């Protein structure tokens, strides 16, 4: 293989990718050859590797004293709270189902809400769920969804923010939240999730169930 000659400036431009193993074989060979003969660039390479090794060490990540203990306390409190909420949450659905059933009897089918189908379906998505949007697209996705267009322009935000910005849920990766009626597979799962946050989220699931 014939190595192409690369300049110092080209080496500096690619040195980060080189350290990450993110250059093609031809360029890597050329850079290897350059490092053998150029003392300056060999110094830049050694220094860059020092930076990556030192800052990448676990010891560089420090938390204040007691951080873990306080975090454990808060998580434990939340977990216990959710258990209590799940025991009492059944009262709320029963009351809400009765209320909604009564309302449905008084309301004709011609008076459906004016919300779009997606907006109505999106209400079951946990508002704090981390989702991804990309520029030029109208859908929001679960991170890693294979149907995200233009991955280069992705940004993350919460589902609530995404809907406020006018995005609608991806019908593929978020389909579990878009199913309605008795065919909904994960209804119980979502109900349990809602219970974690206590009383605020439980009625969302109640209305969804009652609307069947």
């Amino acid at each position, binding site marked *: 293989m014939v190595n192409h000659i690369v300049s110092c400036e080209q080496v*500096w*431009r690619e*040195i*980060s*990718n080189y*350290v990450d193993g*993110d250059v093609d074989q031809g360029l890597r060979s050329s850079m290897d050859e350059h490092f053998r003969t150029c*003392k*300056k660039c060999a*110094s*830049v390479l*050694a*220094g*860059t*590797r*020092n*930076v*990556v090794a*030192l*800052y*990448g*060490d676990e*010891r*560089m*990540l*420090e*938390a*204040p004293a007691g*951080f*873990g203990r306080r*975090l*454990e306390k*808060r*998580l*434990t409190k*939340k*977990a216990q709270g*959710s258990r209590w909420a799940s025991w009492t949450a059944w009262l709320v659905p029963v009351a809400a189902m009765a209320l909604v059933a009564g309302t449905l009897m008084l309301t004709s089918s011609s008076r459906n809400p004016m919300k779009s189908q997606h907006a109505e379906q999106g209400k079951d998505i*946990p508002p*704090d*769920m*981390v989702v*991804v949007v990309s520029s030029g697209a109208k859908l929001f996705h*679960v*991170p*890693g969804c294979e149907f995200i267009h233009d*991955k*280069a*322009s*992705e*940004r*993350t*935000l*919460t589902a609530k*923010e995404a809907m406020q910005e006018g995005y609608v849920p991806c019908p593929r990766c978020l389909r579990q939240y878009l199913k309605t009626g008795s065919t909904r597979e994960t209804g119980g*799962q979502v109900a*349990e*999730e809602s219970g*974690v*946050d206590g009383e605020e989220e439980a009625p969302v699931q109640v209305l969804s169930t009652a609307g069947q």
Partner: protein
Amino acid sequence: MVLNTTVDNLAQTSSREHDLISRVQDGQRELFYELVRPYERRVYAAALAILRNEQDAEDAAQEAMLKALMNIRQFRAEARFSTWLIQITVNEALMRRRRERTVPMEGLDGHRSGGEEESEYAPRDFADWREIPSEALERKEVRQRLAQALGTLDRKYREVFMLRDMEHLNIQETAEALGISVASVKTRLLRARLMLRDLLAAGWEQGWFSRLPFEKGTKPW
């Protein structure tokens, strides 16, 4: 032999983690802290890198872990659990920064950064310095020196560097967490590494890594 042992340990950790995740997803929420404990320092550091205030970082980190607990069923096994936690934390910290605007706005490119992101950064120090042994990190003053050096970088470089080189997210994950393009991540990472290299080279000459007394100071990031 050592390599095999390490691989075995990693496999055991991974298997144990998957087991814990399943149990928490099935309702044993009291086990969640056990699940996140190995990553708690990473979670805190990610929040601190963005908010630059210890109390705000702790609040954001705690809130992020509560959200992770609430959304644990949405975690998919094909993703790395640690990455999922970091992404939630970064999102929480960025939201707080946007909402509260408590972090002073920084210039897009301070004098230490040496020009625009798009222009090329030329290394300045070509001293023939050797590899710094990782044992140097045993000393708190060395860690503080390194943290101070990182704190002098502008926000956009510091955040990319933090997520990529300290939190060990890959390029794509870093781009997703910060809502910027892969190309921007690469450009900013290159510049951050080269700037830190120059600072380390200068520090080497000033004796950062030798046993010198170190004045008390606070972490700048």
